[in-house]
């Protein structure tokens, strides 16, 4: 499966990056292809291109704040969870996607 994700938290110091690392790892273990854009204290990193988004079968927003450039994802299937959820139970998110 081709997945893209965005992580973002209010201070943008820790959870944005922890969640990104977590999602990348689980996806890899499950054999998915994933690209995670982080919106943190360093601004937008690993930015998702139009092409990335078009090719993706699903988008995960693991966010506690508004996603920057949300309009980029219009027309794509989006699943939104809190950052805490992404850290606590990332397997659960992927299980939901596969269903």
């Amino acid at each position: 499966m081709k997945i893209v994700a965005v992580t973002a938290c209010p201070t943008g110091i820790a959870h944005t990056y922890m969640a990104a690392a977590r999602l990348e790892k689980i996806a890899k273990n499950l054999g998915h292809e994933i690209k995670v854009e982080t919106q943190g204290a360093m601004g937008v990193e690993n930015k998702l291109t139009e092409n990335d988004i078009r090719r993706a079968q699903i988008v995960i927003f693991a966010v506690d704040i508004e996603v920057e450039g949300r309009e980029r994802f219009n027309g794509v299937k989006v699943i939104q969870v809190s950052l805490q959820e992404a850290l606590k139970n990332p397997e659960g998110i992927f299980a939901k996607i596969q269903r």
Partner: protein
Amino acid sequence: MSTSLSFTFVCSLSNGIHARPASHLAEVANTFASECILTNLRNDAIAKVRSVLAIISADVRHGDCCFVQVSGPDEQFAHAALQRFIGEVLPGCDVPLAGGDGFARGRTLPRVLQAAGVTGSFGLPVSSGFARGKVVIVSGMALPRGLQAKPAPDPEKELERLKRALTTVCGRIRDKLTHAISPTAAAILQADLAIASDVSLSEKLAEEVSQGQSAGQAVMEAGEFFISVLRQSASEYTRERASDIQEICLQLLGEIYGAELRVSAADLHEPSVVVAEALAPQQLLALDRRYLKAIVLEHSGTTSHAVILARSLGIPLVVGVKNARVLFSPGQEVVVDANRGFVVSNSANPVQRFYEHEVTTLERRRELVARHATGPAITSDGKTLEVAANASSHEEVVQAFANGADAIGLFRTEMLFLERERPPSEDEQFAIYSEAARTAAGRPVIIRTFDIGADKPAPYLGLAQEENPFLGYRGVRVYAEHKELLQSQLRAILRASLLGCIQIMAPMVSSLEEVLEFKAALSEAKQSLTIMSVAFQADIPIGIMVEVPSVAFIFDQLCAEIDFFSIGTNDLSQYFFAADRGNPKVAGLSKVRQPTFLRFLKQIVDQIHRAGKWVGMCGEMAADIRYLPLLLGLGLDEISLPAAQIPECKRRISKLLAAECQNILNRAIACVHAVEVDDVLDRQQSLGAAQPLLSEELVLLESTSQSKEEVIQEIVDAFYVTGRTEDRHRLEESLWARETVYSTGLGYGFAAPHCKTEAVTSDSIGILRPNRPIDWGSVDGEPVGMIVLIALRNQGSASRHMQVFSMLARKLMNDEFRAHLLAVKTAREMVTYLAQQLE
């Protein structure tokens, strides 16, 4: 006698019938001859309505049902009047008091104490430090020892003394009432007057005297009786009134004993915390320094002499603690935290644990600071600023140099002249000045000639009471009339001048004429010494205080006459803005960080420097470390402050960049409001060379912390002792602000608390591994055994450090990385490992 008339009412006042409504009620009852009795049906308390104290003692709260019975010759009129008053007027008698505890609002205790359910009384910390001790209330209520034992052979005479005192006190309050500046002030005075003229009080006093008490003892007994009654009230408002009674009793004692009472001070026998409404400098000095550990004042003034004195002696002091004398009882063990600004009872275990840690933290912090105290204060970019101390006794001079002072920038001499029958002799002064010069061992000592006005007690000067002593006959202005006093002081200073580097400074100068007269007086003193063949330093430097704005317009003339200047910011700002700094309604106007005032200071310094002369600052502004960037920006040659603050001040200077301080000053000058200046100061980036993200001191393995609160406190303290934060409270609160969004416990037994804050001086990582797992409210519900704390200084743009932080956050998701952190044996190993991993 006819049958009595009665009615019932329900109290609708939200704070109950406290002193102010009670005083109105009693006023009405007192216009009639009938006896009016109020019964509070809730507690069956019975009160004479003519007595304010009795009404207050009945503790009538909101919703209480009361029964009023009126009997006597004019009972019909009295009944009607009281009923109408209680129904129509009384509910409007409770206009809330204006003003109050601005700085105490929104203050919180450290989280560790909050979590332990401790409550604190807040105030404004004005002399830092913390101390434990038993409460000793110095209220003036304590009679001097000699007076306590005095028998009262003639009750008639004692009663007469009491009546006279009551009449005088009432008269004085009435007099003040006619000058009351606001309705609130008038209402308070009215309540005071009601208490002073209360029938219950005078009855109680008479009763005490009839039992053989002296007038003073009777006041004490009666005061204590009513205070204890009021303290039992459920209403905070009523409990507060206890201090009104205390105030009246103090005034009565003052009348009865006069000067004898003024010297009264407490005898201290064990480590003590002195709690008082306000303290006179002489009162403070009379306290046994061995046992005086801290002071708590209800009065909120921050520039009184007692405050200045406590600061220079390094005695922790918190001012503006409302009702401290009522809230704390004598003998109670308390902790005064004058770093944070509160007082807590020391009985709870967590308090003791917290302050045991605090002792170690502050000790280590002092070591850090002391490393910077020796040697001159030089900014990161190489500019030296002389850091001198203010002093007024030999003791303070010794402390100043022990703390690393480069000089004594202001030796106040008026303390030598006050509260005594005769002025100090020339020899007495010579002894004191030469002691200071010897202790200074060649470093400069600026001695300021006496600055006395009508506000300071020096009876032999015969200064008349003045409406406004700060604008009156004081300082250099009295020298012409008291020529010999000045001559003897100048001769004493000159004689001491050979023993070191002494300089003379004149206070309160406002014109060139005064400078010329002062110089002539100095020549005369020199001449008389020459005649007597006494040696002195012929070219002793002469300077003046810059505290009257008029001198700012004649620097060209002044610089031709004298050698140096020292800016006294307290008086200069209040004269500049025409705003009394003791009047809370206008004190805000004369804040030294008003941009207008900063402009004025810049003009002063620039003008003096253009003429090639030296200028320092010895006012309170120099003592406030927050203003250091502004002072460096001004380009002052010296700042003079209380000795206790010198090490920290020197350390701060070494962290600043002089060039950037000029920019900070320019930005501050361009502001409109004082608060914007605060903002500029908060944002200042000029913190010198950055520290590495992590150091061994920030790795706390085998921590004994037992809770989330203690863990965060311990890491914050580690930041403090390594100079990574100057504001522990703000750093702690930033971390907790993040925790309240949701716990930073990320599972796997790890937590990563973090924040973005200007409370850290540089980006930092703190690591703590507790001996026992800590409940962190983690996502998986498990306790944590490893805490990695990240503090980012808000610098707006993406920084290199943020890259490290994001890498660290990602790594925390890596099993191997976490296992390694748990296995690391030493702090050094931890630093090395992380440096490797986060390359």
